[in-house]
C-alpha cells in the first residue's frame, strides 16, 4: 500500500516538474490535471498583466484566456512556448476589451470615492488587486501607489514590455514574439521604461 502511495507522490512530483509544453501535451492526451498545473503557474501573473494593461475585469481576462487555451489545445503544436501563447491570447483580449471600453462611460480612476479625502477608485482597485489589507505597512502602500502611477504614465508599448518582463517573466524573445516586434525594439522599450520608472521611484531606490 505504501508503495502505491510513494508511486503516486512520485508521479505528482514528476508531473509538476514538467515544463509548460510537456504539460500541454499531457492535457491534449486527456490529463486534465496538467491544465490545472498550468493554471496555477500562470494565472496570477496573467491577472497582474491584465491589470497593468488596464483591463476593467482582469479575472475575466484570465478566465477567457485559459478557456481559449482549453478549446484550442489540439492546435498547440509546441512550436511556440506555452507562456508566449498564453500571454499573446491575454494581450489580444486586453486590446479587445480596451476597444470596447473606449466608448463606455465610467467613473474616473482619479476621482475620489466618497469624501474628498477618501481614496480614489484607482487606488481602491489597485489595493483590491494585490489583496492588501489594513495591516500592510505604510511604506509598501506608498511604494505601491507611486509605482502604479508611474507605470500608468508609461507609454503603452513600454508598459507592456515592462509588465511582460518584470511581472509575467517572459524573456525578451518571447515578448518580441507576443508583441510581434523585433527583440531590439523590445529592449529599447524596456530601457526607457526602466529609466522612467527609476526617475519616478528614485525616492524608494
Amino acid at each position: 500500500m505504501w508503495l502505491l502511495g510513494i508511486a503516486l507522490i512520485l508521479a505528482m512530483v514528476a508531473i509538476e516538474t514538467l515544463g509548460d509544453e510537456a504539460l500541454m501535451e499531457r492535457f491534449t492526451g486527456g490529463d486534465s490535471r496538467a491544465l490545472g498545473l498550468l493554471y496555477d503557474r500562470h494565472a496570477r501573473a496573467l491577472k497582474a498583466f491584465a491589470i497593468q494593461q488596464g483591463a476593467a475585469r482582469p479575472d475575466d481576462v484570465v478566465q477567457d484566456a485559459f478557456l481559449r487555451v482549453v478549446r484550442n489545445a489540439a492546435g498547440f503544436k509546441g512550436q511556440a512556448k506555452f507562456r508566449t501563447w498564453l500571454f499573446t491570447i491575454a494581450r489580444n483580449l486586453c486590446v479587445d476589451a480596451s476597444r470596447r471600453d473606449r466608448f463606455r462611460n465610467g467613473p474616473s480612476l482619479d476621482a475620489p470615492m466618497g469624501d474628498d479625502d477618501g481614496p480614489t477608485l484607482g487606488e481602491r482597485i489597485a489595493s483590491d488587486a494585490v489583496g492588501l489589507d489594513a495591516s500592510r505597512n505604510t511604506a509598501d502602500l506608498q511604494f505601491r501607489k507611486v509605482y502604479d502611477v508611474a507605470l500608468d504614465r508609461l507609454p503603452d508599448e513600454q508598459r507592456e514590455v515592462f509588465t511582460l518582463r518584470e511581472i509575467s517573466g517572459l524573456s525578451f524573445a518571447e515578448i518580441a514574439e507576443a508583441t510581434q516586434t523585433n527583440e531590439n525594439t523590445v529592449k529599447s522599450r524596456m530601457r526607457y521604461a526602466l529609466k522612467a520608472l527609476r526617475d519616478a521611484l528614485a525616492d524608494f531606490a
Partner: protein
Amino acid sequence: MTDKNTTTNTTTSADDAAFVDAYERRIAGGDSAALPAQWREEIEQMARIHAKIAALPMPEVSPAVRSVVLTAAAQVAAESREPKSLFATIAQFLFRPGPILVGAMAAALALAVAVRPDKAPAPVAVSGPVAALDPPSAPQPVAAPPPALAAAPAAPEPATEPGGAGAVHEAAAAAVPRAEAPPATGSPKDHAGVDDEGLRRDAAPIAAEAASVAPDSSNKPAEQVAGQVAGQVAGQVAGQVAGGAVRARANHAASAKAEPQQAFAQPPPQTVKNLDEAESARPQGFAQAPDKRAAAQAMLGAVDAGKANNAKADVAKNSGANYASKDKQAAQNDDAAPQANREGQQAVLKKTAEVKAEANEERANQAYRSQPSNAAPKAALPNSAADNKPTDNAADNSQVAKLREQADKVVDPSKKLAILKALHAAALKAGDVKQAQWAKAQIEVAEAGRIAPAKVTRQPAAEPVNRAKAGADAQH
C-alpha cells in the same frame, strides 16, 4: 500608443540592448563590478527598484475562475480520452462540409439528369402548351369528375388542335342542364367566354393551377361558372407557371411550325353528334378538365369569401389577361385552319359564350345573395382597410353609398365599369366587405359582357336573378 522614443530607439538600439542585457545580468545575481561603468549607478538603482517590485504580492485570481477553467478542461480531456469507434471516425470524416457539398452536388446532378426531358418535343404532340403545362398524369387534388365525363380520360384523343374538338366539347358541355349537379360543363366551359384558341389554350393550365391551389372543391353550387377564375387566378399562379408556360409556348411554336394546324384535319365539328362523341374527341390536355373546374369553383368560392378579393387579385387578373392576349396573338399568327372549320367553331363558340354570360350574371347575383352581413372576417381585408379608423370609415361609407347609387343608375357599360371599380376600391378602403364583393362581382360581369356583349342582359345589380328562371334557361 505612440512610442515617444522611436527615434532614439533606432539610433541607439544596440546601446539599449547592451544596457538591458547588463540589467538582466545584474538582477539575475550578477556581480555589479562586471557592469559597464557608465551604467553601473543606474543599473544598481534599478536593481533595488526591481527587488521592491518583485516583493509586491501578485494579485489573487478568483477561485470561481479556476473552477470554470478546470471544468472545461475536464470536459475536453474526457472527450479526448473517449475511444472513437470506426463508425464515428468515418462519420466524422464524412460529415464535414467538403464531402457533404460534393455529395449534394452529385445528388443534384443525378437528379437533374434523371428528370431531364431528353425526348425532343414531338411535332404532333398533344396540344403543345397544354400537354407541357398540364400533363395528364399529374395528380389533381380535386373532386371526382361528374359521371357524364368520368370515362372521358380513357377515351382516345384524336384531336390535337385545341380549337377544334375542344370547342365541340365546350358546346356539348354547355348543353348539359344546369340542374344536374355538378354540371357537366367541365373546364372547357371555363374558356367558353373567349372566342379564341390561344385564350382557351392558356385557360386550361391556369385552371389546372387553380385546381392545385384550391382549398376545397366539393362545396360550391354547380351553377357557379369558373370562367373568370382563369383571369383571377392567372396572376396569382403566374409565378408558379411562368417557367412552364414559357417552355410550353416555345414547344407550341416549334410544333406549329413543323406541322401547322394538323389538328384541324382531325374531327370536324359537324361529325360530333352527341356528348359522348365530344368527350371522346376531347384533347388530352382537357382530360381532367372537370376536376379542374370543380377546383376552380372552389377557388372562386375562396374569392367570394374575401380571401382573394383585393387589389392584388386585380393586378393578377390583368397580368393573366395580358398573358392570354399575347398567346392569343401568337395563336392567330399560327392559325392556318380551313375557313369552314373556323365557321363551325365560331358557331359553337358563340353558343358557349352565351351560356357563359348567363352564368356570369347568375354568379354575381348569387354572390350578392349569399353574402351575410359579416361574411368575411375583418382579417381577410387588406391591412389598410382593417386598420382604418372609424372616423375615416364614416366618410368612406358615404362615398361607397354614393358610388353604389351611381352604379345602380348608370346604364352605359363603360361608365358603369369605371364606377364599379371605384366602388370596389372605396368599399375595400371603408372595410365594407359586402359592397366590395358585390362590386367585384359586377365588375366581372361587366368585363365578361365586353367579351360577349350581345348576350349580356343587365339587370339591376341589387336584385338577384330569379333562380328558377336561371334553371329554366339552363334547360334550353
